[in-house]
């Protein structure tokens, strides 16, 4: 590897994760931080830490100039963007490279191409990846869009070309609603993303969300199999697994091969994820989007393949070729990740910053807890609510679920409400146990499932 240091341009649990991976490779670590994060675990763990601005992310973790300046001041040789913030900002990747540093991720050009929904869909089609029936690209105007919607058949989705992470999406039930909603969606997309471009797509009923982890060094490209992320609330993933359950081997092979084909077609560098909708009845999968960064749920892939994805990203950025060949990547057992958020599941998931008074973490060979928490840590109100990720491995999914229940029983975060009770209830749910879920399962389940298990709570959902 040609790099000896890395600056972490992120915060929270992923900053801690990156620092640990970098240290394992013998790299010097530099953590940037906002005024609200001076007391964070990442700042404590890093070899050096640089204040880059006030609490508001716009003035710190999204401040490209301040981050580049910190990197130059500390003579960092690479910048890892984590996820969120600037991770998929092509201008940031370009600015890092222009400053003479390595960006731990793909080129700005790749981020730009794959970050534009329409261009990404076109790239997928060219690489032979099935795409959801819909407008081939941005729709010209409301009339053209309505004609396409009628052709596909309702319900359809209107999506913002520049949206992502579940934002900028509307589901439309009929032609009258389409006519009403289309101009609003365009105005909102323009306001939210600075780009009013829209496209139209078929809605796949009871779809599952399955995604494929890819790694590339610009010449060689491999997949690390798939993750199942169907348990979502408001399009945010809550619980993830690897591998996907009940996926026929032939489909798995086609799915993973299609992700590699797409990576190869764009000369991908780094870790990335190709997301798909899976129609279980028809056994069809459709491309959704590519995330050109490490994902929150990457640990489930690490647990079943033994590959350290963050270390692999750093090595690739340092100029090393991929350390794994496709034939070396195999699935061993099953893994599940629960996202532990600072939200009260009994009060409509109201986020709740505060101080962690007590922290008891389950351990053991099959359990991993990625977190930035420590006892006495004050969770700031300025960023997202993710506190940690409980990840459990088993030889089979059944064993994994059983170990997960034990691990959840042993996890105690005192002082603030968290989503731990939600995960305890999900781990005990018969539909979750059989894998009888889809992307709209959790929201329906929350209407009854959690209240039913909350006997000890005075507040019903």
């Amino acid at each position, binding site marked *: 590897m040609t790099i000896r240091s890395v600056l972490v341009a992120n915060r929270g649990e992923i900053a801690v994760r990156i620092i640990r991976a970098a240290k394992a490779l013998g790299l010097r670590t530099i953590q940037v931080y906002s005024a609200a994060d001076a007391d964070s675990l990442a700042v404590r763990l890093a070899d050096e830490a640089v204040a880059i601005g*006030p*609490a*508001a992310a716009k003035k710190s973790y999204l401040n490209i100039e301040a981050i580049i300046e910190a990197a130059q001041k500390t003579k960092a040789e690479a910048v890892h963007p984590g996820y969120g913030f600037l991770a998929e900002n092509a201008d940031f990747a370009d600015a890092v490279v222009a400053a003479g540093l390595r960006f731990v991720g793909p080129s700005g050009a790749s981020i730009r191409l794959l970050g534009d929904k329409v261009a990404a869909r076109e790239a997928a089609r060219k690489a032979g990846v099935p795409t959801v029936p819909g407008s081939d690209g941005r729709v010209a105007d409301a009339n053209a869009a309505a004609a396409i919607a009628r052709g596909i058949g309702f319900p359809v989705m209107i999506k913002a070309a520049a949206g992502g992470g579940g934002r900028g999406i509307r589901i439309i039930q009929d032609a009258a609603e389409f006519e009403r909603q289309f101009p609003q969606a365009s105005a909102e997309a323009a*306001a939210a993303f600075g780009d009013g471009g829209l496209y139209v797509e078929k809605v796949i009923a009871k779809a599952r969300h399955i995604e494929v982890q890819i790694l590339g060094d610009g010449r060689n490209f491999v997949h690390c199999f798939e993750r199942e992320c169907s348990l979502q609330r408001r399009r945010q993933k809550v619980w993830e697994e690897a591998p996907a359950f009940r996926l026929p081997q032939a489909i798995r092979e086609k799915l993973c091969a299609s992700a590699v084909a797409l990576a190869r077609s764009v000369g991908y560098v780094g870790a990335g994820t190709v997301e798909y909708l899976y129609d279980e009845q028809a056994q069809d999968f459709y491309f959704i989007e590519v995330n050109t960064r490490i994902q929150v749920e990457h640990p489930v892939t690490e647990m079943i393949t033994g590959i350290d994805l963050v270390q692999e990203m750093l090595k690739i950025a340092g100029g090393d070729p991929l350390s794994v060949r496709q034939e070396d990547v195999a699935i061993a057992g099953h893994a599940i990740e629960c996202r532990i958020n*600072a939200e009260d599941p009994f009060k409509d998931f*109201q*986020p709740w910053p505060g101080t962690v008074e007590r922290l008891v973490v389950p351990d053991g060979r099959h359990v991993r807890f990625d977190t930035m928490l420590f006892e006495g840590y004050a969770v700031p*109100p*300025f960023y997202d*609510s993710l506190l940690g990720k409980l990840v459990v491995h088993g030889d089979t999914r059944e064993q994994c679920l059983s170990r997960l229940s034990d691990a959840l029983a042993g996890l105690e975060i005192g002082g603030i409400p968290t989503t731990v009770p939600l995960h305890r209830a999900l781990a005990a749910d018969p539909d979750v146990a059989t894998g009888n879920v889809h992307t709209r399962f959790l929201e329906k389940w929350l209407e009854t499932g959690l209240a039913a298990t909350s006997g000890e709570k005075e507040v019903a959902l």
Partner: protein
Amino acid sequence: MSKQETRSPLPGIFYRKATPDSPPYKNDGDAVAAGDTIGLIEVMKSFHEVKAEVSGSAIRFVVDNEDAVMAGDVLAEIEG
């Protein structure tokens, strides 16, 4: 002339407008009616409206758009 302080009910980021491209809910010097929205507080990516508790002839903000605030911080003063 009496002055009423409007305080932040929550810790988070204070916004004076609904979206980056919207006009501010209120400008300094605007009259306000009790119940008018004067800003938003973002707590861990969830948004909460801040409403004026009293009516007044002029509002003056003491916190800038996108500043971090703690619960109880004064956001604005309203002149009666």
